[in-house]
């Protein structure tokens, strides 16, 4: 099945089984390894990316649903050489420990501050429900607030 969509701003087509998880296609067909496999059941959020700006769990997203849509992965979050506010904040706050789950958290956070520019702690608790086995949650909370701050300064 031929499926065409935009990935990080560029058009692409893949010829795969339409029920293949988008994560598989992104990593193995398109070679973008930033998005991670965690649980395979849409539970942990490590595979979070954006489809038309919505944070989705790509391990549970059949690629056929991406046809005609715009997919953004962690590799496409920055604008050229300019880091996304979330990437800047993550760097400033030295958030990652092992780092494996961080791309998913960052993509979820980017979706959050896009819709709620100045999230409260409650907003963060309600929206960012990914799992980090290193328990970097405290640093992430600081980084999310910092990302919102950088974002507001830029805009």
């Amino acid at each position: 099945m031929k499926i065409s969509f935009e990935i990080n701003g560029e058009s692409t087509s893949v010829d795969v089984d339409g029920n293949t998880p988008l994560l598989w296609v992104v990593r193995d067909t398109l070679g973008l390894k930033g998005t991670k496999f965690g649980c395979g059941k849409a539970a942990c959020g490590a595979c979070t990316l954006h489809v038309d700006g919505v944070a989705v769990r790509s391990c549970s997203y059949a690629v056929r649903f991406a046809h005609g849509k715009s997919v953004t992965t962690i590799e496409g979050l920055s604008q050229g050489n300019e880091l996304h506010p979330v990437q800047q904040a993550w760097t400033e706050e030295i958030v990652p420990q092992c780092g494996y789950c961080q791309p998913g958290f960052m993509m979820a956070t980017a979706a959050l501050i896009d819709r709620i520019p100045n999230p409260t702690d409650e907003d963060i608790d309600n929206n960012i429900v990914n799992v980090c086995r290193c328990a970097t949650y405290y640093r992430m909370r600081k980084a999310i607030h910092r990302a919102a701050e950088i974002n507001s300064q830029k805009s």
Partner: protein
Amino acid sequence: MRLKTPLIFSAVSFLLLVIVYSSDGSEKTGPDETYIQPPQVDSAFERVMSVVTHQRCMNCHPTDDFPRQSEDSHIHRFGVQRGPENHGLAALQCGSCHQEANNLSSGVPGAPHWGLAPRSMGWQGLDKFEIATAMLDRTKNGNRSLAEVEHHLTEDPLVLWVFEPGVNNEGMEREKPPLSKDEWVSAVKEWIASGAEIPVKE
């Protein structure tokens, strides 16, 4: 004479045993009713409500802001919430995990416009009579006429998902409602064609 006494004793004992084991202590006054009673057929209302009150439907009709899931209707994992438009929160939308079809590898269920029923259509804690009343109440059902209610119940792919709910995250088939899709459609049409009458609660 010595030879006949044990024979008579044995015959009497046998007869007593037959009498004891054939009696259930009740007097039979007519034919067994199990065989002459016609099978009970529930009314269209009862058949409709047997599906509506099943957890496959009820889990997405909460009266609060938290969807339920699974056969035991526990609160949806991960703190998932209703959100302002019944489709989740800013970065945790229903569509973050639920797509337009069941995902048989992850076990995440899916159907078009997956989301919660509006709060006005919250059914948890209501009995079948109260639910039916709410379904027909235009101030609660999205201002649907009776014809539109019928269309919603028999055509909406999210409603009809309950008859093909797929597998859970352990690969086990989800429990289906007591009617098949065809039986459901037939029951809904029969109920509405007869005036969508709601029986008086006994």
